[in-house]
C-alpha cells in the first residue's frame, strides 16, 4: 500500500511535468510548478522524509512560486507561440534518458533494507544508534544537520547570503548607465530610497 501511494504520486509528477512542457503560458507553468512541488512534498512524506517535505512545501512551493510570480510581474508572461520542438533536442534527451535508465538496472530496489547506503556502519547505522546519546534531539535529521554535518549547514547559510547579496546588487542598486536615462520622476531616482523601494521601479526598456 505504501509503495502504491508513492508510485501513484510519482506518476502524478510525470503528468505535471508533461503539462509544464506542453503549456505555452508561463503563468500556467508557474502554477503547475507549484502543484509539482506540493505533490513532490507529499511523496516525500510517503517516503518518510518529513523534514524534507516541510522544507519543500514551504520553500519549494511557497517561496519559489512567489519568486517566479515576482519575476513575471517585471517581464512578459507569454511564451512566443513557435514550434521550437527540435528533433535534435528530443534525440539527445531520449539517448541520455536511456543511458540513465540502463544505469539504474543494477541499483538496489526501492525500499531495500540491505543496500550499501542502509548498512554502512559509519553513516546511517551510527547516526541511528548513537545520535540520541551523542547529540540529543530525538529527530535524527536535526542532529546530523546541526552537529555531524554542521559545516555543511554553515556553507548553506553562506550560499543563501551570497545569493541574497547577488539579487540585491542586480536589482536593488541605482542604475546609472549611458544611454539609459531614468525618467525624472522615477521612484528609484530620489536619494534616500531603500533598495526595496527601487525594486518596485517599473521596467524601462530601450526596445519596447
Amino acid at each position, binding site marked *: 500500500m505504501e*509503495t502504491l501511494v508513492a508510485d501513484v504520486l*510519482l506518476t502524478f*509528477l*510525470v503528468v505535471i*511535468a508533461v503539462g*509544464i512542457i506542453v503549456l505555452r503560458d508561463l503563468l500556467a507553468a508557474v502554477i503547475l510548478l507549484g502543484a509539482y512541488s506540493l505533490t*513532490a512534498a507529499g*511523496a516525500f512524506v510517503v*517516503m*518518510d*522524509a518529513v523534514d*524534507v517535505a516541510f*522544507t*519543500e512545501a514551504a*520553500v*519549494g512551493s511557497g*517561496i*519559489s512560486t512567489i519568486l*517566479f510570480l515576482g*519575476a*513575471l510581474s*517585471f*517581464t512578459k508572461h507569454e511564451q*512566443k507561440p513557435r514550434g521550437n520542438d*527540435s528533433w535534435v533536442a*528530443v534525440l*539527445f*534527451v531520449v539517448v*541520455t*534518458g536511456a543511458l*540513465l*535508465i540502463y544505469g*539504474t538496472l543494477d541499483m538496489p*530496489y*526501492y*525500499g*531495500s*533494507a540491505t543496500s550499501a*547506503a*542502509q548498512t554502512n556502519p559509519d553513516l*546511517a547505522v551510527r547516526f541511528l544508534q548513537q545520535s540520541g546519546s551523542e547529540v540529543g534531539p530525538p*529527530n*535524527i*535529521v536535526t542532529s*546530523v*544537520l546541526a552537529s555531524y554535518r554542521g559545516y555543511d*549547514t554553515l*556553507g*548553506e547559510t553562506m*550560499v*543563501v547570503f551570497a*545569493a*541574497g547579496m547577488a*539579487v540585491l546588487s*542586480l*536589482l536593488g542598486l541605482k542604475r546609472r548607465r549611458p544611454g539609459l536615462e531614468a525618467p525624472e520622476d522615477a521612484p528609484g531616482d530620489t536619494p534616500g530610497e531603500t533598495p526595496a523601494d527601487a525594486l518596485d521601479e517599473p521596467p*524601462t*526598456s*530601450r*526596445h519596447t
Partner: protein
Amino acid sequence: MEKIAGLYSYWVVVVLMMAGLYIMIARYNLVKKIIGLGLFQTSIFYLYITMGKVSGGTAPILVHGDVQPVFSNPVPHVLILTAIVVGVATSAVALALIVRIYEEFGSIEADEIAIIEAQEPEA
C-alpha cells in the same frame, strides 16, 4: 515484474530529469528554462530520497519505549535539506538576472536577445 516494481521510482526520476533537461534545451524562453531547472532539481531530490527509504520504516525520529521501529536512512534527508534551500537561492539569482536582461533588451526569449545583441554596434 519484481524488477519493474523495484526500479519504477528510479525510472520516474529519470523521466522527470529528462523533462527538465528537455525544457532547458528546447525552450528559448528564459523563465521557462528556469522552470525546467526547478524540475531537474526536484527530480534529483527525489533520487536521493527514494534511495533512503526502507520498506516498512518510519521517519527517523526516535521514540521513547522498548520497541524501536525501523527507521529510514536520515543521511539523504540531510543532504537534500541543504540542496533545497540552495536550489531556491539559485533560482532567485537566475530570476534576478532575467529581470535585468528584460530591462536591458526588452525580451526574455533567448534567440531574440541574440539577434538584438548582434544588431547593436557595440555592447
